[in-house]
């Protein structure tokens, strides 16, 4: 205190007391305002803060986030308070005479040790949360998640159920030709379905580049890395639909590969899973069926919208990928076309190897569609069995 002067010190303490009160007032007023629904709705629409989420872990992370946030606010109030105090009181224009002091070992020691203690207080809860998050043992359901450019594949291990999940927002909404829907860019054709109150383990990897699987409400974010399998887990408390996005830059359509998780009551989940298995059986049976041109074309169009449109354009006109209208592959020999679809293009990492992403029916349909759409009018068609034969013969 010697270096500041007694009178000043008491004045300083008074100012400190005032500024320390401020955030408390702020908090209470926020809470008081919180009673008004309109304010809450408005704040929610703008999205000001991290979601509390729907799992024990997400709540814990939210609490940790708020704890650190308030500690920072308090430190900020003290430091900026003193700073503004001196900016107001110690101006040359109001006749302030500069003091001469310029060091104090005691003060330096204090402001090294006190922050270190505060950090220890932060590290304790952080460590305990981290240990919980890393314990993925005793999971009841295991789901393998594979990131592709630009979609997710979900495989229920041991259940023989596997499917892709694609963005369903139409190009017209993205390009402003149609009004945007409520879940713009956060909607998929097939969501990941999980039961509530069960420990679900995710085994996350990628097929091409890095991706990251993130659902804020579950507080799960893990990088999907080709050649490595990461794991994460969740136990969802409430049924509902939770939306997230890929969080690691993965190329052109990185912003267009959302994640939708549908958490259901256990009975509903069992029904859904049974339905999925039935679907898989039907699909197997369909592999040997013969389809009409119209059936193939209609199915192919859907497959095209989900898998090809990002690079080859809404009307096959090209973009990141080449045009498909009247060009070599789509209007050339059909076997070459099958080859590109099943095996990809040598030396071109961007064109996926669809042979292990699409089933034979979808491959046959999408090739048929491309050869007959946009004025290509080749008139030829493929059946699933043709794809099977092709794969066997190569």
């Amino acid at each position, binding site marked *: 205190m010697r270096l500041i002067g007694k009178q000043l010190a008491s004045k300083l303490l008074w100012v400190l007391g005032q500024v320390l009160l401020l955030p408390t007032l702020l908090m209470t007023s926020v809470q008081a305002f919180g009673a008004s629904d309109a304010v809450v709705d408005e704040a929610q629409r703008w999205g000001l803060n991290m979601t509390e989420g729907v799992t024990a872990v997400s709540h814990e992370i939210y609490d940790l986030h708020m704890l650190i946030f308030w500690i920072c606010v308090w430190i900020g109030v003290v430091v900026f308070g003193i700073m503004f105090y001196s*900016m107001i009181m110690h101006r040359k224009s109001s006749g302030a005479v500069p*003091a001469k002091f310029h060091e104090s070992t005691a003060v330096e020691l204090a402001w*090294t040790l006190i922050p270190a203690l505060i950090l220890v207080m932060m590290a304790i809860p952080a460590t305990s949360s981290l*240990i919980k998050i890393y314990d993925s043992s005793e999971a009841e359901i295991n789901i393998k998640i594979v990131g592709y450019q630009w979609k997710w594949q979900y495989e229920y291990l041991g259940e023989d159920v596997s499917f892709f999940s694609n963005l369903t927002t139409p190009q017209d909404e993205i390009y402003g030709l149609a009004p945007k829907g409520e879940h*713009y860019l956060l909607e998929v054709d097939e969501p990941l379905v999980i039961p509530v109150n069960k420990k679900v383990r995710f085994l996350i990897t990628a097929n091409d580049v890095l991706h990251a699987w993130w659902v804020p409400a579950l507080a799960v974010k893990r990088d999907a890395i080709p050649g490595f399998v990461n794991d994460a887990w969740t136990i969802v408390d409430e049924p509902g639909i939770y939306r997230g996005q890929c969080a*690691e830059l993965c190329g052109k359509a990185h912003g267009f590969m959302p994640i939708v998780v549908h958490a259901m009551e256990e009975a509903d989940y069992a029904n859904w899973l049974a339905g999925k298995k039935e679907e898989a059986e039907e699909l197997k049976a369909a592999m040997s069926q013969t389809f009409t041109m119209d059936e193939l074309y209609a199915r192919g169009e859907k497959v095209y919208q989900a898998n090809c449109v990002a690079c080859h354009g809404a009307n096959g006109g090209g973009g990141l990928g080449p045009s498909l209208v009247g060009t070599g592959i789509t209007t050339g020999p059909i076997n070459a076309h099958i080859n590109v679809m099943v095996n990809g293009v040598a030396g071109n990492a961007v064109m996926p190897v669809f042979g292990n992403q699409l089933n034979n029916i979808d491959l046959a349909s999408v090739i048929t569609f491309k050869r007959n759409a946009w004025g290509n009018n080749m008139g030829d068609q493929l059946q699933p069995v043709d794809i099977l034969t092709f794969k066997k013969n190569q």
Partner: protein
Amino acid sequence: MGDHGPAKGFGRWLFTTNHKDIGSMYLWFSFAMFLMGGVFALVIRAELFQPGLQLVEPEFFNQMTTMHGLVMVFGAVMPAFVGLANWMIPMMVGAPDMALPRMNNWSFWILPFAFTLLASTLLMEGGGPNFGWTFYAPLSTTYAPPSVTYFIFAVHIMGASSIMGSINIIATILNMRAPGMTLMKMPLFVWTWLITAYLLIAVMPVLAGCVTMMLMDIHFGTSFFSAAGGGDPVLFQHVFWFFGHPEVYIMILPAFGIVSAIIPTFARKPLFGYASMVYATASIAFLSFIVWAHHMFTVGMPIAGELFFMYATMLIAVPTGVKVFNWVSTMFRGSMTFETPMLFAIAFVILFTIGGFSGLMLSIAPADFQYHDTYFVVAHFHYVLVPGAVFSIFAAVYYWLPKWCGNMYDERLGKAHFWLSFVGLNLTFFPMHFVGLAGMPRRIPDYALQFADFNQIASMGAFLFGFSQVFFLFIVIKTIRGGEKATDAVWDNPEGLEWTVASPAPYHTFTTPPPVK
């Protein structure tokens, strides 16, 4: 000796070995890059003004985010600090010039070639680099556009320039100080640059190794970063961030030095805790080498690794806090005036501290699972880089410009520039905290509807901030062309040898060493 004037014509600039000429060229180059990187940023903000794709396609958007980051880091901020070092370090330590003047010329003149190479990729088939400024493999190797090779060579050249610049700075500081200028008498700007130069020499070769491994993977059949060939994509991130984390301190330590020069001048009171400032800088530099994996909390490290990097990262708050407390104590019971350099320096302390708070929040690994790769991170690093690094450079220019050109800048215009920049940057970057927390990932060209309002505000702020910098250019040119003549001391009794020479500083200064008290 002392009356050798500069050569005439363009040759002066091409062949110069004068630290002041080279410093000026660095600063002008850096400003040009700042405007170029700024235009890229405005393309990004214009596209994000509302949901949907309006102006650019996603692949071009990705090129813009990548080039914005690369140009701002390697083209704007780093060369600006090297320019300031060139101008000020010899004058601050009482040396006639840099220790290695020919190499100095070379380290500057390879930069325009590096950035021409980098910028030319935008015109190439397949477009420019589109994999983010962190260029994670395999997006930057197997899946990269063909122009990636040009990007690799550009990074090599930038690295060579930085390494040569650092060697020069270290040699100057260690060998060319005037008699009596002991290490603990050096101005903090010299100290922070000495430590920065060591950081650069330590990590730029790591970056060069990293891009060389990419080059091998792309063209010579190796598999450093490809799991299919026995390599490891995560290795890339470890190598990159071993460079990348010290790199972010390379962009902030010289700023600490600048602010430590300006605050005492305008508080009319010596810097509080000079020695502890030096030790804090050294501690930050040491810690910067052992925290890199906090950029990778979600890659699936073992828990022991997560904990180590979390604790080490939290520790950085201690020496950084010491610095902030020292600045505040310097202001406390001073006799303050608020000229433009002081305004920028005070804004630096406040806004950099806010960036430090969000940094502390990000260091908490479990919470980082929610923050990682969102706009919260974008807000954080822009708060430490824009009102941090960039504001300190503005402050330095206003502070030393009268010494450089002999004229005072227009105080009213300088203050206007400050307030426009201050409002613009807070409008741009503060809302990013909110959208990030609410779940908006970074590096996306289009977003869900709930993020629309804050993005609109951020875009408007960005344009305000951007155009304020054209105003800054106007102020600087106006000052160089004329204005009230500056005195030798320029300010009210500032500390440092640079204020003992005439304004404008003669072409050659301290050809005989000055006395140091």
